[in-house]
């Protein structure tokens, strides 16, 4: 555990240093993230000012949802996408090898090898949205609510990691699966909308087989809805199930991995 933390810390350091090497690139992408955060705010404000409710959320609740979405941009883009983006290409070109011969779990190695800090504004923006949302609620959720909120954020990250990693691990079974890393982040974008905007069948799919509709909604609703233990338990089961499946697919893929010619 300590070794894993040390490695993660070292990768964080290296990624930060790498980011600093190309200042313009870092500044441009940071500004892009600021822009997306601002667009989110404008978009939701425009919606709320016209229709008062989005699905079954009012302004305060929508702000909490968008705040939660923005907070999770960091693990999705800053961690997972940064680590996974080039992985399918490296698999097809045989460059995975230098990672899987290391005396560290190979899934861990490929999952923490790169971070991007240009999405840090999303963390700040997300926190501001959350605070604004809570203020708009008219009451302050209890301390326990915040603890559950943080707990479910962690479960959400675990669930997203499981699903995202499955999509990436599939590259081990194919000769080429370029740009697969972009599919999940596109799905993540759709996760901030209430599931009611989809039809019944799609709703079922998006809460079970591909539980995109739960990523943001389950943790954020802790702050403005009564406790829904069944929903939380289902969320946890899904996170465990997708991670177990991701592990199996990865190990099975490694057995089939034929590398690339030298």
């Amino acid at each position, binding site marked *: 555990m300590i*070794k894993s933390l040390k*490695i993660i810390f070292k990768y964080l350091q*290296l990624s930060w*240093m790498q980011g600093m090497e190309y200042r313009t690139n870092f500044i441009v992408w940071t500004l892009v993230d600021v822009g997306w955060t601002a667009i989110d705010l404008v978009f939701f404000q425009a919606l709320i000012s016209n229709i008062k409710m989005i699905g079954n959320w009012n302004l305060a609740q929508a702000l909490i949802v968008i705040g939660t979405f923005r907070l999770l941009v960091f693990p999705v883009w800053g961690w997972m996408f940064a680590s996974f983006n080039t992985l399918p290409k490296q698999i097809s070109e*045989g460059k995975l090898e230098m990672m899987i*011969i*290391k*005396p560290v779990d190979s899934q861990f190695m490929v999952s923490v090898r790169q971070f991007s800090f240009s999405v840090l504004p999303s963390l700040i923006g997300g926190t501001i949205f959350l605070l604004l949302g809570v203020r708009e609620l008219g009451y302050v959720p209890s301390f326990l609510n915040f603890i559950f909120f943080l707990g479910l954020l962690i479960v959400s990250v675990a669930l997203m990691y499981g699903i995202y990693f499955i999509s990436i691990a599939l590259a081990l079974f194919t000769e080429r699966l370029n740009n697969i890393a972009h599919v999940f982040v596109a799905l993540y974008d759709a996760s901030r909308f209430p599931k009611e905007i989809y039809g019944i069948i799609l709703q079922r799919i998006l809460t079970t087989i591909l539980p995109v509709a739960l990523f943001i909604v389950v943790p954020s609703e802790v702050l403005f809805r009564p406790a829904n233990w069944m929903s939380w338990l289902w969320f946890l089961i899904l996170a465990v199930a997708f991670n177990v499946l991701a592990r199996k697919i990865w190990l099975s893929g490694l057995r089939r991995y034929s*590398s690339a010619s*030298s």
Partner: protein
Amino acid sequence: MSVISVKNLKKYYKVHQKEPGLLGSIKSLFNRKYYDVKAVDGVNFEIGEGELVGFIGPNGAGKTTTLKVLSGLLYPTSGDVSVLGYTPWDRKPVFQKQFSLVMGQKNQLWWDLPAIESFILNKEIYEVSNDKYEATLNELVDLLDVKEVLKVQVRKLSLGQRMKMELIAALIHNPKILFLDEPTIGLDVVMQKKMRDFIKEYNRRYNATIVLTSHYMDDVKELCKRVIIIDKGKVLFDGALDEIIKKFANHKLLTVVFSKEVSEKELKKIGEIKEFEMPRATISVLRDKVSSSASRLLESFPVADLNIEEPKIEDIIREVFTGRDFA
């Protein structure tokens, strides 16, 4: 005592065949015909502790595939492999801490950062203590003479400097076994020599077992007492470098300098002419006929000088790979 044991190792790949042209591409989209490529086909060998073994063969012979199986990157189709008593593809960390793989065409260094940062990362990954890390790093930096460029971004290093840094990154945990796949590829002759000197010294100093693949015969000749020749997935030869001559070269070379013009037609009666440019000729003759051929040359031609030589090892190996008969 052997630290690497390979018994009847086979590694087959399934590869799909595509007919040429656009139509072929469309057909292969729906109906693919697969066939097996026997990258490694029943390879056996044992390597003892501290040995420096050259693994040679033409492109596609199965050298790199064998190294990848030995380092646990690939699962074999069948066969038994033991490296330091471990089955490589079990990928146990305790095993992975004891070997290193350096591939001349693949890198592990962070491109945008000085190599020292990658060394520190490997220190954490291999759980090397601070004292051990400092001592090993200083020793390797001195041996490879790279102190000046340790803090320069990898992308700004020359190919030779980069290869030296790759070696340090691979050796920072002091592995007992080192797999080197084309470590001198693309390097100039001066840098190739430096790399060879380093590999030799590393083997001597740490009694490390080293398996080396290279297309440069100079690497093999200078470093390896023992070579394993592999072609089409099978071992053709395993033994001392000198024995290659005994096993594959049934001929010797007579190098003659003539004092007067001679007829090429007449010369062909002595043996196979390899080179002929007056006043010099090189003739290949069967080993058991060397004496009689030399006598005939001296009797029938105006010979100013005559040398009897073994053929060059690289020539023998090249001819082995092109399937020539040496009889």
